[in-house]
């Protein structure tokens, strides 16, 4: 914990006994609401200057001219960085050494491959001068016709989707299953491009001292960022110090160092002074990843008894012309519904956009809205209630692999969610319900799912003679509450209360906490913390049980229990000794130990691991005007052990709100000719406002998972988006009788063909 980060130590955060499971408020909450939390762009080191990106207004072609003289002549401008004078890099920004490495636009040449690509950086004494300098560059281009949208070029089958998933997967014979089905559904769904709009745009303050680099920048993966920068600049990772105590939202966009961040570092190198570079809101719509659009074809066959005979899910998506990321939308069909035949496939076109990347529930979110809509359509075609249909096709084992689930409380999610929502009162047919004002009312549901992933992480635990402990792991607080949840795990791991546990996170000199992504951060870093704590307690126990002067002498390492700053002899509470006394007698100021975590390959080979949930949505629709509002949402989620229900619920809420956004609001509108995005601002890139989310409830369904990891934690960060989007879309159908297959659903979709 760096000195300026004063986390709350109010009684609520200093409880005795087990901290895991307590619904503590965020320890950084007071800092944030008082403005005391320092985000990257709040840092102003001595001598700092400002860098501003000049970005391309064409999507494809070449920069032929920049008015460097005009920009340099502007008072306050220190330098203009272009491909001609950009400091050298140790690594080609277009190198791709592994699939987790994405190509960057770092002024390596004069080519333009998407609208909004950085084409120069202006560095000046003030932000205003740098901004004006960038405008004065007045670039000229050689323009080629832009390839835009899902039909922008010839489709092909990518080698892999997501990170290394096969583009095509099948079990059984889908064609035969369809041919033999009593009911067949085929439908095509479209989802739009979505762009990252975290409250905090990407920002960096970079300062060089010889070959040492000091950086303030938001990161969801400090060690990976360190490694990437080290490679680009040819310096040792240890020479790079990154501070990222708080992120103003990440959602996947801050998982990798992006081009603009690296350009900020280059700018600092160029002028030999600390540099700050902050993206403007509209500059978020290009170089920092986005969710690619999809067009998905679902084909379902159902036998007379209501069981699926075939499930085909084909997804078309877009990627950039220069890198590979393909939204794995169809893969969601692998795990949710039992079917003897499942085929998933992907195709893609390369268009002139920045490379799409991870955005909250990548693949699952896009795939889920299509699959859940198709399931709803199929249930209706079969004359079955959508919940009954889902239960009929409940997957007892993971359909695509045949593996048993490590745990799956989805039935309980369905039951508890349906009960809370009042689903049993739902009329079967659409357009049956009205409220007292005559608005159409519809109820829909969707199943939520997200894999329970584990990456790798490390932690270091310290016990001190004064009876306190320290836990270090460079975890990332994106607003989800990492400062709190990990401190809870740390306190329990050290057998201390939270007041005596110092948790250090958010900087790159701490042990590598892996990546805050894939909804796996709590499980991964939490397990490293758990192991580090166990290791340091074991060292302490060795000291005690091997010392004849200790009341614990001879208990053996496994014969002690750590609690409340003392070691107790198992089975004999009267024999105990405080940590401080043990260390004092051993003449030690402190002891430490490290812990690591990683997925257990045996468990992974034996079990399918997923979190699940069920979301129920009510929408109201004006029968004449088509205006839609999601008036009530109930989600019930089972995701293993809950460290802090308050934080978990807020993750579910956030995910569910994004689901509403997905179904009804969010969409980047690109000009079909230029490829430029026309609504790159928060006024017109619509995400839900408070009035769009009048009632929201998230139920935590108990689930014990002995296989995912020792703490039993699955992820909660992304699952809420899945299920919800489909539930809202299905509710719109139930309200109106009109099936909308292009998202977001717009009121004009409900006007025609009534």
């Amino acid at each position, binding site marked *: 914990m760096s000195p300026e980060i004063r986390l709350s130590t109010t009684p609520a955060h200093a409880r005795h006994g087990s901290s895991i499971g307590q619904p503590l408020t965020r320890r950084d909450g007071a800092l944030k609401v008082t403005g005391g939390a320092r985000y990257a762009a709040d840092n102003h080191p001595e001598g700092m200057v400002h860098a501003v990106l000049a970005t391309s207004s064409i999507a494809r072609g070449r920069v032929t001219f920049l008015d460097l003289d005009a920009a340099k002549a502007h008072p306050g401008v220190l330098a203009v960085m272009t491909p001609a004078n950009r400091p050298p890099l140790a690594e080609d920004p277009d190198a791709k050494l592994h699939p987790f490495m994405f190509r960057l636009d770092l002024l390596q040449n004069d080519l333009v491959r998407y609208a909004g690509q950085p084409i120069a950086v202006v560095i000046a004494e003030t932000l205003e001068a740098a901004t004006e300098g960038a405008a004065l560059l007045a670039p000229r281009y050689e323009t080629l016709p832009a390839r835009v949208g899902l039909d922008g070029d010839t489709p092909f089958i990518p080698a892999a989707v997501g990170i290394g998933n096969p583009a095509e997967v099948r079990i059984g014979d889908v064609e035969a299953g369809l041919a033999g089905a009593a009911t067949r559904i085929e439908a095509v769904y479209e989802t739009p491009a979505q762009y990252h709009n975290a409250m905090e745009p990407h920002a960096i303050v970079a300062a060089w001292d010889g070959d040492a680099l000091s950086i303030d920048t938001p990161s969801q993966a400090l060690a990976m960022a360190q490694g990437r920068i080290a490679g680009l600049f040819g310096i040792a990772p240890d020479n790079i110090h990154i501070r990222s105590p708080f992120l103003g939202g990440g959602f996947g966009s801050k998982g990798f160092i992006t081009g603009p961040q690296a350009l900020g570092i280059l700018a600092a190198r160029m002028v030999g002074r600390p540099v700050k570079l902050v993206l403007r809101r509209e500059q978020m719509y290009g170089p920092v990843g986005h969710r690619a659009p999809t067009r998905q074809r679902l084909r379902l066959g159902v036998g007379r008894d209501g069981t699926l005979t075939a499930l085909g899910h084909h997804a078309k998506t877009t990627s950039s012309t220069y890198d590979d990321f393909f939204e794995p939308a169809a893969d969601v069909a692998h795990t949710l519904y039992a079917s003897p035949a499942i085929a998933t496939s992907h195709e893609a076109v390369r268009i002139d956009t920045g490379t799409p990347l991870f955005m909250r529930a990548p693949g699952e979110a896009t795939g889920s809205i299509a699959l859940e809509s198709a399931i709803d359509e199929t249930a209706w075609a079969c004359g079955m209630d959508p919940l009954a249909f889902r239960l009929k096709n409940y997957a007892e084992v993971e359909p695509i692999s045949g593996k048993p689930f490590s745990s799956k409380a989805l039935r309980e999610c369905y039951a508890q969610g349906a009960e809370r929502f009042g689903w049993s009162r739902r009329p079967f047919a659409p357009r049956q319900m009205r409220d007292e004002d005559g608005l159409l009312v519809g109820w829909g549901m969707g199943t939520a799912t997200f894999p329970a992933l584990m990456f790798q992480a490390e932690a270091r635990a310290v016990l001190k003679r004064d009876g306190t402990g320290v836990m270090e792991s460079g975890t990332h607080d994106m607003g989800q509450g990492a400062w709190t949840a990990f401190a809870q795990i740390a306190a329990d791991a050290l057998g201390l209360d939270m007041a005596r546990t110092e948790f250090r996170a958010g900087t790159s000199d701490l042990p590598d906490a892996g990546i805050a992504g894939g909804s796996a951060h709590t499980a991964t870093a939490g397990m490293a913390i758990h192991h580090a704590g166990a290791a340091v307690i074991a060292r302490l126990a060795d000291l005690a049980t091997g010392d004849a002067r200790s009341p614990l002498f001879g208990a053996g390492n496994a014969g002690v229990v750590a609690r409340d700053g003392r070691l107790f002899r198992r089975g004999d509470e009267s024999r105990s000794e405080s940590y401080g006394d043990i260390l004092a007698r051993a003449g030690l100021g402190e002891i430490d130990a490290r812990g690591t975590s990683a997925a257990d390959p045996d468990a992974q080979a034996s079990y399918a691991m997923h979190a699940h949930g069920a979301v129920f949505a009510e929408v109201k629709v004006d029968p004449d*005007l088509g205006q839609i509002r999601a008036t009530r949402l109930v989600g019930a989620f089972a995701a293993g052990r809950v460290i802090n229900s308050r934080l978990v619920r807020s993750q579910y809420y956030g995910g569910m709100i994004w689901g509403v956004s997905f179904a009804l609001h969010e969409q980047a509108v690109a000009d079909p000719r230029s490829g430029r995005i*026309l609504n790159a601002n928060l006024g017109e890139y*619509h995400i839900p*406002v*408070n009035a769009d989310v009048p009632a929201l409830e998230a139920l935590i369904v108990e689930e014990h998972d002995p296989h995912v990891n020792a703490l039993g934690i699955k992820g909660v960060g992304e699952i809420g988006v899945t299920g919800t989007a489909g539930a809202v879309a299905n509710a719109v159908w139930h309200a109106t009788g009109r099936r909308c297959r292009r998202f977001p659903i717009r*009121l*004009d979709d409900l006007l025609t063909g009534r």
Partner: protein
Amino acid sequence: MNTFDYVRPASVADAIAAATAPGAAYLAAGTNLLDLMKGDIARPERLVDISRLPGLDRIETLPDGAVRIGALVRNADLAHDALFAKTYPAVAEALLSGASAQLRNAATMGGNLMQRTRCGYFYDVASACNKRAPGSGCDARAGENRLHAVLGWSEACIATHPSDVCVPLAALDAVVEIEGRDGRREMPLEALHRLPGDTPAQDTALAPGDLILAVRLPAEAAGFAANARYLKLRERTSYAFALVSAAAALRLEGGVIAEARLALGGVAAKPWRSRAAEQALAGRRPDDDAFRRAAQAALADARPSGDNGFKIELARRLVARALALAAAGTPERLPALPASPFSSAAGARHVA
């Protein structure tokens, strides 16, 4: 950004003198102008900050019963002025349906009238746009134009005017008081905004240096207080510009519409008053048939300017609904979701 002069005149006369120079622009709260400057859409050489000019921030009742709203009255202050909201409920409802609370707290009456279109190509300086760069063409015409005009547009420009409050103001015969180089004058609000024709760069009838001093609502406008609504369709429940909106006001006498007022927003480069619809309603009973006919009349000349034909039918339905809501009576209190179809129709009626 670009260097420019900034002047803060002490009087209206000084302001006009300062703003008459070429390239000068008035700055009120800046919620529109500063965005345009940051985006390089507007590059004024001189900002004439009128935000502290004395005497322009008052809401006054004049001896003849008219209400005069100073150009610097904040949108929120006007909407929350109890007497004003009671007398001109559709105006208050329109104000509260616009932008966000934070913006309404800042935005001024004059600035709201003079705000510029939200056409995405107007904001995208790399696109051709006759309004921003006369003669460059109109990229909206064959581009993304789902939200564009269906009335009064020209081949040169199909943009709409985004203001909400202008719509009921136009319906209620508001008058704009202007002071310019040649002294004071006034014009109906309806005449303030221009249709694009061949010169879409010129949004309004104001000449360089012309300063809006106030907007006046005539005494007769209060006669609609019992039956006046503003209704606005948008892509989320709040904080979005109108797809289409309508202000409807009725004066009922003995169960018959003695006089009707109707204007549409989001359909043209100006708030679109429909006298044909008003005439179709006069003397009729306030029923669905009358409302439907009025809606037909209001949109009779509408034609799509692109992928926006739906707006015509949507506007028809909206007009009929707004009239029905007005006929049902102004709610006693402004609904919690102003101008939204989701503001509950149930509840107490306005007592005039």
